[in-house]
C-alpha cells in the first residue's frame, strides 16, 4: 500500500465527511432546537442549487456571490415556511413530517413544471493537485474547509453569543425560557431560517459537482437522514460531527472498494445497529452520560 493510496483514501474520507456535514447540519440544528424534522430539506438544497445556477448562468454574477445569494434566498424561504406551516406542528412531530413532505412534493414537482427536467450546470472550478499517481480536485478541499467553518460558526453562535444562550435555554426547557422572557417563537423562526440557509448554501456549493435536476434533493437527504438519526438532536453540533465522522469512516472504504451503493447500504445498516443500542443517537447518549455524572456528583 503506497503512501499515495493512503492520501487518496484520506481525501475520499474528507470529501464524504464534508458532504455529510453540509447535508445534515441544517437539518440537525432544526431538529435539535425546533424539534421537528423537515422532510423538505432536500428540496431546500435543490432550491439553493437552482438559485446559484440561475444567477450564475443568467445574471453572470461571480460564483461566490451566487452562493451567498442562494443561501440568503433559501433562508428567507425557510422563515416563510416556518411561519405558515411548521408553526402549527410544534408538538406533533409526525404531523410536521407529513406536512413538510407535502411541501417537498410541491417544490420538486413545481420546479419540474417551471424549469423542465434538467438545466445547464455551473462549470466546476478547475483547481487540481496531484500526489504520487493520484490527482485530486481542489474544489473538494474548499468544500471541506467550508463545512468545518460552518460547524465552527454554529458552535460560536451556540456557546458564545446571547442568541446562543437563548437558543440553548429554549432547547432545554421552552416553557421555562418563555417564563424568563425569551421569545421562543422568534428563536424557532431564526433557527429554521438558519437551517434552511445552510441547506441553500449546501445546494449552491454542490451545484458545480452534480447535474441540476428537480429531484436532486433525494441524493442529499438519504445520507442526511441517516446522519441525523445516528447523531440525535440532543446536541446538534456534537451529533453532526461525531455521526458524520463515524459514517464517513464506514462509507469511505465500502464505496471505494465495492461501489457507492454498498456504501449507502452500509450506512443504513450502521444506522439500524446504532439506534438499536443508542435510540437517541450519539449526542443523546452523551447527554445521558453527562446527566448521570451530574446526578452522581450531586448526591
Amino acid at each position, binding site marked *: 500500500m503506497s503512501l499515495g493510496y493512503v492520501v487518496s483514501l484520506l481525501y475520499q474520507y474528507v470529501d464524504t465527511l464534508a458532504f455529510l456535514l453540509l447535508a445534515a447540519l441544517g437539518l440537525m440544528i432544526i431538529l435539535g432546537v425546533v424539534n421537528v424534522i423537515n422532510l423538505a430539506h432536500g428540496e431546500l438544497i435543490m432550491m439553493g442549487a437552482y438559485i446559484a445556477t440561475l444567477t450564475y448562468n443568467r445574471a453572470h454574477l461571480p460564483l461566490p456571490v451566487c452562493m451567498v445569494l442562494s443561501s440568503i434566498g433559501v433562508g428567507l424561504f425557510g422563515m416563510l415556511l416556518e411561519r405558515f406551516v411548521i408553526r402549527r406542528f410544534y408538538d406533533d412531530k*409526525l404531523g410536521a413530517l*407529513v406536512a413538510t413532505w*407535502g411541501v*417537498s412534493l410541491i417544490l420538486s414537482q413545481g420546479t*419540474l413544471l417551471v424549469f423542465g427536467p434538467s438545466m445547464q450546470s455551473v462549470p466546476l472550478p478547475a483547481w487540481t493537485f496531484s500526489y504520487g499517481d493520484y490527482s485530486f480536485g481542489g474544489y473538494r478541499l474548499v468544500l471541506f474547509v467550508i463545512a468545518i467553518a460552518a460547524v465552527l460558526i454554529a458552535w460560536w453562535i451556540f456557546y458564545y453569543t446571547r442568541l446562543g444562550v437563548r437558543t440553548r435555554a429554549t432547547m432545554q426547557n421552552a416553557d421555562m425560557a418563555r417564563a424568563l422572557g425569551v421569545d421562543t417563537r422568534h428563536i424557532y423562526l431564526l433557527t429554521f431560517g438558519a437551517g434552511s440557509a445552510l441547506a441553500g448554501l449546501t445546494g449552491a456549493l454542490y451545484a458545480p459537482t452534480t447535474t441540476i435536476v428537480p429531484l436532486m434533493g433525494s441524493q442529499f437527504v438519504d445520507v442526511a437522514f441517516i446522519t441525523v438519526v445516528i447523531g440525535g438532536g440532543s446536541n446538534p453540533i456534537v451529533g453532526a460531527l461525531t455521526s458524520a465522522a463515524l459514517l464517513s469512516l464506514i462509507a469511505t472504504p465500502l464505496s471505494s472498494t465495492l461501489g457507492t451503493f454498498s456504501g449507502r447500504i452500509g450506512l443504513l445498516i450502521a444506522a*439500524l445497529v446504532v439506534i438499536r*443500542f443508542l435510540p437517541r443517537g450519539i449526542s443523546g447518549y452523551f447527554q445521558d452520560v453527562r446527566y448521570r455524572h451530574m446526578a452522581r456528583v450531586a448526591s
Partner: protein
Amino acid sequence: MAREYTGFWRVLNGPQEIGRGPVFWCLFAFLALGLLAYPFFGSVFALSNLANFCLYIPMGLGLALLWGYNGVLSFGQGAFFAIAGYVYGIIAGNLLDIPGGTLLAAVGGIAASAAIAAAFGYLVFYGQVSNWIIPLLLLVLSLILETFMAQTAGYQWRVGSVLLGGYNGMTNVPSLEIGSANFGGASIAFYYLVVALMLITYLGLRLLVNSHYGHVVVGIRDDVERTRMLGYNVALIQIQVFVVAAALAGLSGILYVSWGNYINPSSMGLLAATLPVIWTAVGGRSSLLAVLLSTVTLRWVADTLAVRGGEYAFLVMGILLLVTMLFFPAGIVVTLARRWLHQKSMYRDLKQNGAP
C-alpha cells in the same frame, strides 16, 4: 349506544370505526352488491380500470392500521409493495410450467415483504426509538432499494431465467393462476378477486381493530408508556402490526403485477412511497372506511391528471396533502363524517327535549 349487539356483531360494530348502525350497513351492502353486479353492464376497459384503483386498497388499509391505529408512520409501504411484486415475478417466472406456481409465488412475495418488515421492526421497535426515526429510515430504505433496482440492467442481473431489467423494469410477469382460472388484468376473474380481497381486508381489519388485541394496538398509539406499564409487550405488538401492514402492501404489489404483468423500480421510489401516506392522511387515518374511500378516489384523480403529465398529478397530491395537514388534521372524510354525526345527535336532542 342504544342497541345491544352480542359476539361477532358487537366486535364488528365496535367503537374504532365510523359508520355503525343499520343505515351504514345498508349502504355498505348496496355498494358491495353494486361492485359485484358491475361486470354485467360495465365495459372490459372500465372494469380493468376499476380493478386497478381498488387493488391499492389493502396497501392503504395496512397503512391506516399502522399509522392511524398504532401511531407508527411509514414511508416504506411502497418498498414492501415493490419487494413483493419483484419476488412474485422472480418465482412465477421460474415456475412457469408448474401448476400452482403463481400461487406459490404470491405466497413467496408476501412472505418476503413480511420477513424484511419483521427484521426492520425488530431493530427499531425493540430499540424503542422515537417515532420520527422509523419513517425516516424507511424512506432511506426505499431510496436505496430504488437505486439498487435501477442499476440491475443487463444479462448478468438475473435470477434463474428472469431478468431484473434495471430501470426499465421486469416485463412479461405471468398473471396469477388458480387451477384453470387466469387472473389477467383485463379479466372479470381478476376484478372479482380484487373486490373479494378488498372486502375481506376491510372487514377483517375492522374486526381486528375492534377486538381486544385492537384495543391494545390503539392503546399503544395513545400512550406507549401506559400500555407498557399495563403489562403488554409493546414492541412485539408493534412488530406484528408492522408486519401485517407490510404483508398487505405486498398483497397489493402482487395484485398490481398480476394486473399489469410488469413492475419497475419507480414503484418503490420516493414518489411511490408518498402515495399511501397521502391517501391515508387525506381520507383520515383513524378510520379504515375513510382510507378505503380516499384510496379509490385519489387513485382515480391521479389517473385522470396523469394524462396531462405525471408532474401535475404529484403537484396536486402535494397541495392536497399540505392543505389536509394544515386545515383538516384528522382527514377530510373523517372530519365531514364527524360533523354530520354531531349534527345528527344535536337534531335528536332537539327532538327529544324540545326547543331550548
